[in-house]
């Protein structure tokens, strides 16, 4: 009998503690800003945060990178102030947000091109967007078929969790299914690592992740550089977003932080980490 009472009391305590712990305690726009979301926008937010905290000591900005979907989720749950997203919010996410009394406002902070990268030793310099799609559909299996060496193509994709994947799926795949042979990795950096260590690999990353260890190929004869991406000539490009709950109150740190991209310094930061700014000074 005694044991049953103890057990009952304990169970009630357990249930209570679950209801009492409420994650929606962040959201104070004063001196603490929580940023969460896309791994592509993450570097921008991090550099912004670094710069902003140096200019305004006492302001604490934390940036985590957990994917666009997670960013939206955090904003909807009220656990972050700014959601970094490399795609626009989906209809479902918007509805869920409005149902919870959150009104997402988009700030386009920069433009990002998705570059198709191959191993530096690969002869292939130019691919059409249809060829890229056929490779990812599994129709083109060997580099020989697109003018490269006689090697089976190793297809690297971002995991379905990422905004880069969704943009690639929308802009290149036209919503067709990527072949089952494709390998999935967890970040832009991991795609680059896999491509630079695999001779027959093809992958796609944000422009900021191109360096000398991999080779970006031309798409429809256009090389993914700043001018071609921002002018919209390069076919695989997308805007990068920061979402806030409503437009931030003017004069707050949050407002200054999410409008940093409009300033000259913000443009410099965005260019320095390999994205294309909205403004032109």
């Amino acid at each position, binding site marked *: 009998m005694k044991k049953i009472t103890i057990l009952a009391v304990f169970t009630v305590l357990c249930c209570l503690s679950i209801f009492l712990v409420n994650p929606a305690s962040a959201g104070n726009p004063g001196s603490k800003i929580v940023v969460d979301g896309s791994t592509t926008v993450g570097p921008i937010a991090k550099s912004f945060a670094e710069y902003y905290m140096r200019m305004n000591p006492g302001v604490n900005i934390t940036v985590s990178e957990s994917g666009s979907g997670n960013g939206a989720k955090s904003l909807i749950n009220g656990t972050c102030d700014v959601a970094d997203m490399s795609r626009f919010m989906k209809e479902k996410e918007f509805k869920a947000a409005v149902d919870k009394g959150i009104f997402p406002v988009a700030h386009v902070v920069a433009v990002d091109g998705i570059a198709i990268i191959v191993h530096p030793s690969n002869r292939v310099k130019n691919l059409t967007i249809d060829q890229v799609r056929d490779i990812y559909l599994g129709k083109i299996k060997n580099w020989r078929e697109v003018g490269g060496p006689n090697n089976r193509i190793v297809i690297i994709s971002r995991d379905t*969790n990422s905004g880069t994947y969704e943009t690639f799926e929308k802009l290149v795949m036209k919503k067709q299914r990527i072949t*089952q042979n494709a*390998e999935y990795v967890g970040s832009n950096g991991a795609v680059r690592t*896999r491509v630079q260590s695999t001779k027959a690999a093809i992958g796609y990353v944000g422009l900021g992740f191109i360096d000398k260890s991999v080779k970006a190929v031309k798409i429809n004869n256009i090389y993914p550089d700043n001018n071609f991406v921002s002018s919209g000539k390069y076919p695989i490009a997308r805007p990068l977003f920061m979402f806030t709950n409503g437009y931030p109150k003017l004069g707050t740190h949050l407002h200054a932080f999410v409008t940093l991209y409009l300033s000259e310094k913000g443009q410099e930061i965005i260019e320095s980490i390999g994205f294309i700014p909205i403004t032109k000074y």
Partner: protein
Amino acid sequence: MKESRIYPGNLGKQLLNTGSTMTKRILSSFGHSLLFLITGVSVVSVLFIFIFIFRDALPFFKLEGFKDFFTSTLWYPSSDTQSFGALSLFFGSAIVTTGAIIVSVPIGVIAAVCLSDVLSFSLRQIMKPVIEILAAIPSVAYGFFALVIFAPLLQDSGSNILAMSSWIVCTPLILLTAIIGSGLLSSKISPVNSLYIRIIAALIIGIPLFAGLWFLSSYISGIQISSGTNALNVSIILGIMALPTVVSVSDDSLTAVNMSLREGSYALGATRAETLIKVVIPAAKGGIVAAVILGIMRAIGETMVVWMASGNAAKIPYPWFNFLEPIRTLTATIAGDMGEADQVIGSSRYHVLFALALCLLLFTFICNLIGEKFIKRSKKITR
């Protein structure tokens, strides 16, 4: 029932409850219930995990049914026409775990036998902690190693490494077979124990085996490994990760075998090899099986390494035992697909991850039960 009388908990109760005053009794029961609550936390958390995973997995089966989930290999949770065929994921987990067991069990059991019965005590005191350090290395470090160092190595010279390791593994095996087999063969051919006949018999057995090994290794070294992040890579790394579990659990069960069994065997004139193979290992069999099961659980539950280094291609390789193709496991899928699976709306894309988790949980739960049973049985034998 006999055991419960000497159980320390009951002993304390008997001593404390006799002849105490009211306040002492209240204090004692208060302390008792406090300790009970604290211990209960871990028990209840297991229960809660089961309840919550089950609660979130159920809607998936209601929405999508059972058939496709267990029979289709099309895993496209994000496209417009979603399909949730998890067969290739189950297969990926199975092939990687099998590979890990093939790597870890022979090495682990031999190491355990060596630690418990062959090495001197002082050497054992050094070796065992060093092996256990393997368990302390964080899995992300293993994953990083597998992705950045091991995968390119496999790509560039993997076939040569495989051919070489086939020589290293097979040569002693063939020599052993030739020596033992020639003894048996020569005794059958002639009753006189002649060295010449024995050598000839050894050559007859040994040469075709070595020729076979030569063909095998030259075939293996001709294979092209196009991608280093594959089932083989992950199997080897997971095997190393499961090694400390296998070693320490089977070592425990081997050392628990009573000294009198060994002494009896030696007294009957058995050599050390005979004692080990015919007495000690059979007595510790239950513990060794438990070690293998714990190793399986370690391998199947591992997430970070498989996510980073298995390639995550949701397919059944062709042919199915091809370890050189990328695969995707249950754990990696849960970790990789979590971000986009919208919990607010509760779509089947979200619930399918819980269905996968439920399958994993049930599997490890059953493994755990079987493992416990074998450990108990081995304790009974060795006592």
